[in-house]
């Protein structure tokens, strides 16, 4: 079953497809693919973060999503997105895609956030968008071993960088923390010669392999 049929079929109970949602998705699909070799100072990253009913991937469901765009190393308040999934999960997820475009997505703890999001895309939109994902959970200790040389919780990184946010455990509140960490990560990566999204992906992959083998 293709994504359109799924949407039309209304597996989640929707009787008619929302034409706006269809249009948004069509527009998104028409976007050119992101160039992973663009240097950080020209690249755009989208921080995404989720809020779920709990931490169990099998039982818990996605409640809301937040995103903050980083454009050429700058965080501006208007470049942000936050919405609850209900009552229109398909519309919310489509809007998230519209906001993020095809630029690399940055999460903290992909194991949970990426899985949660991809499952929601599959459920409500009927497809899983192919995007570059970066996980600061893995990248931060690689880039900043001088601060924390192990996989650490978001709270630990906040402390290490003396970063604050307006609300912890809120999808956007935490996204704001992750965005600030990403700003720092970009600068450190650049200083180490890791100057593009693709290079960051490589660093992350190497770290994961190292961890698997030790």
């Amino acid at each position, binding site marked *: 079953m293709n994504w359109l049929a799924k949407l039309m079929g209304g597996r989640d109970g929707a009787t008619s497809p929302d034409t706006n949602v269809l249009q948004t998705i069509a527009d998104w699909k028409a976007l050119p693919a992101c160039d992973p070799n663009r240097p950080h100072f020209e690249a755009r990253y989208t921080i995404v973060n989720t809020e779920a009913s709990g931490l169990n991937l099998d039982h818990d469901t996605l409640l809301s999503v937040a995103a903050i765009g980083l454009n050429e190393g700058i965080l501006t308040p*208007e470049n*942000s997105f*936050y919405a609850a999934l209900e009552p229109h999960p398909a519309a919310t997820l489509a809007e998230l895609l519209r906001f993020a475009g095809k630029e690399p997505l940055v999460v903290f703890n992909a194991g949970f956030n990426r899985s949660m999001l991809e499952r929601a895309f599959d459920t409500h939109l009927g497809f899983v968008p192919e995007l570059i994902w970066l996980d600061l959970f893995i990248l931060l200790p690689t880039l900043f071993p001088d601060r924390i040389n192990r996989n650490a919780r978001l709270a630990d990184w906040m402390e290490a960088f003396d970063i604050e946010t*307006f609300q912890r455990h809120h999808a*956007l*509140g935490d996204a704001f923390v992750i965005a*600030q960490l990403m700003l720092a990560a970009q*600068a450190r990566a650049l*200083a180490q010669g890791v100057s593009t999204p693709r290079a960051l992906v490589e660093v992350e992959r190497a770290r994961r392999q190292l961890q698997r083998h030790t």
Partner: protein
Amino acid sequence: MTVTAPDMLVGASSDFLKRFSPFNRMEPEALAFLAQRAALAFHARGNEILTPEMGQARHFYIIQRGKVQSRQTGATVVTEYASMSMGPGECFPIGAISASRPSTNAYVAVEDSFCFQITADDFMQLMQMSPVFHLFCTQYIASLLNQSRQQLQTTFSQRAAEQQTMTTPLAQLVKQEPVFVAPDCSTREALEKMAELHIGCMVIADAEQRPLGVLTQSDLLPRLLLPGVDLSLPISEVMTANPHELLSTASAYDAALAMATHGVRHLLVIDADGRLQGVVSERDLFSLQRISLRQIRAGIESATEAKALQRASQDIRQLALNLIAQGIGAEQLTQFISALNDALTRRIISLALEHHDLYGIDFAWLSFGSEGRHEQTLSTDQDNGIIWVCPELQELEKLRVRLVKFAREVNDNLAACGFPLCKGNIMASNPDLCLTLDEWRSRFGSWIREPDPQALLNASIFFDFRVLYGNERLGDHLRAWLNKSAKSNATFQRMMASNALQVVPPLGRIRDFVLDDDGMIDLKKSGARLFVDVARILALRTGAESSSTVQRLRRAAVKMGVPNEEVSAIIDGFHFIQLLRLRSQHLDTEHDDVTDNKVNPETLNELDRRILKEAFRQARKLQLRLKLDYQL
């Protein structure tokens, strides 16, 4: 209503900003504007955030986290600090961004730092919408002015022999417990006490220790010995009543000025309740100084011919140099020069009066131009005139001839004392400027009624008059009449305003300054004059009676409801230009008209350059005000 993601992030920024001054006092709309536009960026340790090489500053930064060091670049250290580190809530570069020019400091992150940034356009808009923020930036720039003065002082300290500071409060100069006697004490007893304690000045005070009079050593001969006064008389019979007093919080400078003004050698120092704290003598103030006020003053007072006054006039220049070394600002310095030059001129006039019989003629000697404004620098030529009243049944022209003859002697002697003759013949010896009160009125009146270019030029010189010698009331009458006439003539004011706007501050669009053909800036013509001209118009319009530019601006500002900070910033700018003028006159060892008042901005240090630019911006602001007021 739902709260959007941008709202939440803006809220986070404004919560942060509210923890710091001046943002915590900022108007809510202005704070919201700032928080909406504040973008966050990261600067790794060791990275340059802003340097002079980056060109015109494009962003204004507020540190969110971390530490940024501001370091002076270039060969010389121009502020009191060579580098300064800044933490969360602090912002930069205020001077560069408000003046749209490159920063003079290099800003480097010394820790991993996050900074908010807004664009230069947003910064300007914020300044416009927020009086609080505007004030914050203005005060910051004012503090730079202060630093420059300190630096100037250091330069001159090296040139001057002494370091004694003229800003010391009198309380610190008074070393002895006050010595005084009661008014009923016998003269003999008082004299014995003076001899015993080796003091040159005895104070007579009441039971509350409030001074009633003084008796000084120099009084002994004329007042006691020669008349053969009975020494058993109470001292109150022979003392000088109502002695000159100063509060103990006044500075050595204030004391020196008072001594020069009143021609006394001792001043009584009192506390806030008027109780005697001690006595300061000229010797206390200038014991270390090569040329003392006493010497200059004594030289002036004792001169019996104009030749002897020439020496005093050279000493005045030398003293001015010492005073700059001691950190006296332009305002006090010009006042000081003015006070001594006044004394000199008065002495020349009274010497001339010994040869000219003007008995029975009610007259006053007028100063015009910078002397009239108390803004003399060290290379001012003379601008003067006479106002007089013709007694009934006397022949007008005959009297005028006598006055002119007298004036010629004064003008010549002033010239011999270093006040060059006026090239434009604006001198009292010009019969055209030796006018009766009625004639001056009709002269001024014709300029006001028909303000052609020559009339406007005349107004700019002659309307800054003050009485230097003779009957002050003649000057008061003329001033009152002038203010009334000019105030009611809007056309004249408008023409004056348009004339004042002919010269614009030499600020460049691309480069900092627009230079004359010789690569210099004329600090008089394109600097001080801009302030002086506007101040004159504002004074006429608001009826302010002072002839000094600073007083005119202050009084006009009160009447026009201009905020105090704003007028203070303008006055600071004016003083800075005056200070640069004085400095260039001093540093040119040869007294040379050509280079006086000229400055080559290339030779200024960075801080002076940026302050000069700010001073010109203040002039532009003042002109803009005039432009709006008269819709020019």
